[in-house]
């Protein structure tokens, strides 16, 4: 293996990921043969990323464009401190537009960093996870944020100025690893707790908490949040919201014109780019490509065999054998819990009104909304049931993540009630979001194939009329 793919002097996982991503982002006119050639040249983990993003034409058209935008944002993060800005890490449940509203603070999403390392670096995030285990951290933590944060402990490379997280109240492993990184490394931490309370009282408290967080960030950064800047960011954010709504509508069409991997793209857009031009540009492209596919009737498989909703989150360590594999099989992935967003009507008239809108967005942000609810099981099931019905899903796949004790602790209720309320069956699997060693993708594929063949295909097949029973023969010997 070329040593250059592993890690270079002075680089860490994130820097290595940027360097490789930069190359992918420049492959705009690459042919099928060149994709295959490139895939042969690189190590297996990167091959699966390359093929996942580039093998199918519709995916390629978007993903090269998307990667080029993503890498620019990563570079901005890398250079933020040199430009006099403060760099903060945020979890994937934190609306980045809150941070983009500051001119002197730049957000980098912990899990997107972890995901970039996992899907681009040689050996994925395993060395970082193993380092965490070596420190004595429990193996029940979440690989997504542990990998994204632990690479900071190993150095060299980027060093955030603070951690801003909103997982207290909705996710223990996420909140705890962010708190740990802060306590261990001596980096300031700012938190936004989600009260497990959907009443007006709970929402009002959350709004007050958000204002307190803004005040703390203002004091820490020395920058007063400007109304005009906030409006600019929120308007961009709402341009993306309109496209998101259009994107959602496109997913309702059968067969679905939206390529599977766009679901992953949406997740990264929302966690890292929302509130910026890039999110609008990429989403516009996602919508355009999907519409074009609708117009031409393009679909990767002979037929749409099943429309599945991932009732929790995607496993994100092998794009090719997850998204592309299902697409080629005619299995449409309609979304996961992170794809369900609730955007309130935004009142852009004042700073206060926009902050109130932001508080509502953050309150109802995927995972925060469900896992930070008064009842995890009920809110989670209701939201997925809504998506299942609205998008016309035939089945749910619960790709459980061993770190996520909230969903694992209520998944039995979820499956039961989903069946009762929608008649849609759920396949249950447990694995890990970024660590292939937990449950290999081949196992997921086997289970999905069986599930689709045995449950979904039979369910969708026209019911055969039962033949009338033959009359009993007088002579038993005549019975065949």
């Amino acid at each position, binding site marked *: 293996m070329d040593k250059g793919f592993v890690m270079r002097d002075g680089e860490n996982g994130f820097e290595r990921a940027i360097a490789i991503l930069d190359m992918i982002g420049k492959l705009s006119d690459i042919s099928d043969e060149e994709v295959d050639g490139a895939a042969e040249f690189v190590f297996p983990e990167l091959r699966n990323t390359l093929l996942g993003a580039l093998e199918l034409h519709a995916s390629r058209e978007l993903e090269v464009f998307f990667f080029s935008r993503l890498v620019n944002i990563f570079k901005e993060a890398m250079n933020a401190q040199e430009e006099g800005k403060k760099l903060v890490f945020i979890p994937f449940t934190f609306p980045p537009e809150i941070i983009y509203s500051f001119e002197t603070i730049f957000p980098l999403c912990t899990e997107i960093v972890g995901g970039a390392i996992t899907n681009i670096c040689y050996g994925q995030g395993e060395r970082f996870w193993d380092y965490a285990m070596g420190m004595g951290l429990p193996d029940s933590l979440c690989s997504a944020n542990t990998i994204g944060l632990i690479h900071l402990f190993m150095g060299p490379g980027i060093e955030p100025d603070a951690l801003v997280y909103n997982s207290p109240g909705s996710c223990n492993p996420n909140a705890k690893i962010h708190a740990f990184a802060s306590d261990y490394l001596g980096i300031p931490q700012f938190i936004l707790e989600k009260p497990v309370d959907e009443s007006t009282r709970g929402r009002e408290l959350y709004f007050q908490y958000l204002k307190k967080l803004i005040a703390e960030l203002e004091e820490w950064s020395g920058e007063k949040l400007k109304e005009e800047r906030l409006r600019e960011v929120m308007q961009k954010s709402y341009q993306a919201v309109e496209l998101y709504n259009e994107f959602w509508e496109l997913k309702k069409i059968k067969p679905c014109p939206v390529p599977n991997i766009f679901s992953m793209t949406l997740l990264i857009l929302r966690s890292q780019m929302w509130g910026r031009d890039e999110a609008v540009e990429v989403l516009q492209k996602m919508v355009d490509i999907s519409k074009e596919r609708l117009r031409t009737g393009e679909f990767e498989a002979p037929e749409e065999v099943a429309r599945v909703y991932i009732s929790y989150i995607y496993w994100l360590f092998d794009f090719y054998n997850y998204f592309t594999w299902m697409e080629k099989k005619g299995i449409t992935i309609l979304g996961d819990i992170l794809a369900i967003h609730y955007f309130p009507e935004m009142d852009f008239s004042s700073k206060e009104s926009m902050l109130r809108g932001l508080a509502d967005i953050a309150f109802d942000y995927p995972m925060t909304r469900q896992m930070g609810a008064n009842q995890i099981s009920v809110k989670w099931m209701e939201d997925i049931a809504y998506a299942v019905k609205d998008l016309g899903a035939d089945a749910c796949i619960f790709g459980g993540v*061993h770190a996520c004790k909230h969903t694992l602790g209520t998944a039995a209720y979820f499956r039961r009630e989903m069946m009762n309320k929608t008649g849609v069956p759920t396949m249950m699997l447990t694995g890990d979001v970024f660590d292939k060693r937990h449950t290999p993708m081949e196992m997921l594929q086997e289970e999905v194939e069986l599930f689709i063949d045995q449950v979904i295909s039979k369910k969708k097949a026209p019911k055969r009329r039962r033949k009338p029973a033959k009359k009993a023969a007088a002579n038993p010997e005549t019975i065949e």
Partner: protein
Amino acid sequence: MKAAVSIEKPTTIYNDYVKDWKEEGGKVLGYCCVSTPVEIMEAAGILPYRIAALGHSETELADGEMSLFNCSYCRACLQLGLDGTYDFLDGLIETNGCDHLRAMFENWQHIKKLDFFHYLKVPHFFREDSLAYYEGELEILRDHITEHFSIEITDEALEEAMSKQEEVRAKWRELCSLREMEEPPISGSEVISLIVTGSSMRSEDYLQLLSRIIDERKGAPGKKPKVRLMLCGPATDEVDWFEEIENLGGMMVADTLCFGARAFNKTTEVEGSPIHRLAVNYLDNLFCPRMYTEYQKRKEFMMETAKRAAVDGAIVLYNKFCDLHGVDGVLIRRDLEEIGIPVLILEKEYSAAADLGRVKTRVQAFMERIGGGD
């Protein structure tokens, strides 16, 4: 010199004390977390019962609802809820202690559908705004109990209950100071036994028990432990385990456990209504890893405890899949070892007999390492 009397280990969920209480028409409310002010229940004339598993480690029914990646203590408690052992409860008070606990309560209620089920929402940090919210939560709890059980909870009754609980905390501190002596007349496992026992008793009766034990033990001969240990970790009622550890020659002269010193470390003097004072005392003194941006507070409590009890080493004990304690354990080890106190981290399953041999071997090796093993 008086001989030490033995302290009974709590092993029965529906014990004689609770049976008598129920037979006399008393109500019992279950709760789990130390962030639940028992004073409100006591002021209503209700018996607060802290949910425990008392060594019952079976989980078959609970495993149908929760996964094997969930805390075995929560699953063991849920099992007792689902198999009817806890059917004597007149209701449950949920708290958002951790993800496992929340799942436990949700499943319990989905299946048992208790008439009284209240969710007390506890913030994850102590600040003016979170305190005001928590205070409101306590008022809501008070109203709900009043409405459901048709019992008025007056400020006077609350004052009285608070004063009794403060007496209990003072007795616990006294008990712990006995345990911290050079030749402790009471063992660590006995102290935990007493605390667990008290978690299903009315304070007026519990105070009598504590006073009797303290009086008896004060003059009783003690025994110099080979190794003075501090036990850190979550809510656990595994008295058998603690005995096994102490049988190896070490004594738990201090702890920062949830069924232990964490529950009564500090009382904050504050002015205001009874509910306000309760809110301050419960939220500000919640030395639990579920509290964010407050590690420093926990660290100070732990350091003070370790120094006061002159411990030779510390054991951080937690159940598999507990991220809150598992992560804090890394910081605890770093900070205690920095001041020369060796730390053993033990991840285990709740009260699992199969785990005990492994744990004993590790504790034995640890004690040998710190110079006190056989």
